[in-house]
């Protein structure tokens, strides 16, 4: 029974990792940009929500809703002002710029909020759980997982059912031809990063309410997100969700065997997938 419980907890944890990963997957899928500051942006959004909760006395969910447009605007501006300048065939400039951004963000947060670890208070939800048979599932982990599915569905809908999604796919396939059809890649990219920041904010809400975070939490989140994207296969949103779940289950199972192995087990699962299926489980993109 303990193993069923462990795996179930892992699946729910995987929902959180999928939320970390979906924004990364989206941006990579559209503009082949690997944002090394992704994890730090999640932590930044968590601090933003925390600030709204403590300053305005909002509930965590309300604070996240207020944070959404702010983060969208930040993502849009980041892409417009900085990242669009460095996109191109050379992979070096975007990597180095986002790496610099990661270091700047971490230290700005350190300066602003100190190195103390923090948590977004979520009241009774923090400890609430649903008993299902002999197993009890936390309400927050369950909400996280459902949100991950909802975000995947929403992104899938945007991608395949809206004109914006058509512009995303067209720009992803061939930016030059897409721009001949009246699509402006610079503006499409800015919207994509804005949407990625919305996903980041949702991820931050659950990161911040479920566990402690501090300014140095970001890089590890980036690594989990990256592993989920690669396991799932580049460009596949459902694959990313599956990748998150695999990392989550590997971690809880590893922790069940030896608490010191939790993080290591997740990484090992990633390396095993990379060994067997270098292009991920559900590859879509060819590049």
């Amino acid at each position: 029974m303990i193993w069923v419980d462990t795996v179930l907890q892992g699946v729910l944890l995987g929902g959180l990792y999928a939320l970390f990963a979906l924004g990364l997957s989206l941006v990579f899928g559209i503009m082949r940009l690997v944002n090394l500051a992704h994890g730090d942006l999640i932590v930044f959004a968590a601090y933003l929500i925390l600030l709204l909760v403590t300053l305005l006395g909002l509930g965590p969910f309300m604070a996240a809703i207020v944070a959404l447009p702010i983060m969208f605007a930040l993502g849009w501006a980041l892409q417009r002002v900085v990242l669009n300048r460095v996109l191109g065939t050379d992979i070096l400039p975007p990597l180095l710029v986002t790496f610099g951004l990661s270091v700047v963000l971490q230290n700005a947060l350190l300066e602003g909020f100190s190195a103390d670890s923090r948590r977004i208070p979520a009241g009774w939800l923090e400890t609430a759980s649903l008993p299902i048979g002999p197993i009890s599932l936390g309400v927050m982990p369950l909400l996280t997982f459902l949100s991950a599915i909802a975000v995947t569905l929403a992104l899938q809908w945007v991608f395949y059912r809206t004109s914006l999604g058509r512009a995303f796919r067209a720009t992803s396939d061939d930016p030059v031809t897409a721009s001949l059809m009246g699509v402006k890649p610079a503006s499409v990219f800015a919207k994509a990063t804005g949407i990625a920041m919305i996903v980041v904010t949702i991820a931050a809400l659950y990161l911040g309410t479920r566990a402690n975070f501090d300014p140095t939490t970001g890089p590890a989140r980036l690594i989990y997100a990256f592993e989920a994207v690669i396991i799932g296969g580049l460009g596949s949103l459902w694959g990313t969700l599956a990748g998150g779940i695999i990392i989550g289950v590997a971690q809880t199972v590893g922790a069940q065997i030896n608490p010191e192995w939790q993080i290591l087990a997740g990484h090992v699962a990633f390396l095993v997938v990379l060994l067997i299926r270098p292009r991920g489980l559900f590859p879509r993109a060819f590049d």
Partner: protein
Amino acid sequence: MAGQTYTVSTRTAASQIAAVVALVLLVVAIALPAFASRSLIQDMFFILTMLTLAQFWNLLAGYGGLVSVGQQAFVGFGAYMLFGGAILWGVNPVAGLLLSGVFALILAIPTAFFAFRLQGAYFAIGTWVVAEVVRLSVAQWKAVGGGTGTSLPRDARDAMWGVEWIEAAFDTRSSAARDILAYWLALALAVATIGGIYWFLRTKRGLALAALRDNVDAARSVGVDSARMKWVVFLVAAFGTGIAGGLIFLQNGRISPDSAFSVIDWTAFVIFIVVIGGIGTIEGPIIGVLVFFALQTLLADFGAWYLMVLGGLGIAVMLFAPGGLWGLVSGRTGIQLFPIRRRLERRE
């Protein structure tokens, strides 16, 4: 056309002057412990080891197109092998530097095997994952202190080759003598690194590497084996980075997984040094490390602001002057201190 011959040359007037200046500087640097304070020796040690790490990262990213964010794996693993060798097998730490290099090289083989499966930008995070795996695994190694780390044993420190001689020659205490030894080793390593990379870039293989840097498709079309070059560059960089890691912690005397596998100390700083100085040149990391050291000294009291300034500067350079400071200088003046460009000269 009688009497005219053509020769291929890489030499320039600037490079000849630079060679003479470098030789003088080297003599001064070797003699430095005779008249410099201990803190200056320690600063120089820091500059030289960072310069070595920067040169190897530059070889990887600037020439090989391999943007690794996981070089701390080799720094940490190399350092841990030196400590492990000294603690478990009683290896003299100076000889242990070779262990550092060799084990880093061995680690590089599976690392490359995994990371090369990831294309382009994803290679970067792939190397980071490997570094995390190595850090977490080493933290399980109880003989070298597990997660909390350990110190270099006293008898291993005292047994270091050359320390007694330095003590007698410079009439100092053994801790200062160890700093001088570490400084000389760092100097030798930095000179060997710069000399070795410069030599390599001037060989046929180096030309192939430069060709790959400038245009992968064109280089491959004339027969350059890009996959093989990547392996060569990655393994060489791991070997050198491992030795530098061993040396850094030999001087430090204490090691822990968090310090030995620090992404900020051994990769972020190194990347900023190379980018600010000028990526893809040998001169760049030299300028970069001096700027880096100056900034660190100036902003030492400002904590996190220092890293923000460094990161911001790195971003600004990448956006507005991708060639870095040296790129600005050589772009305006055409000066090359380490010329690798072959020019055809006509001799009457």
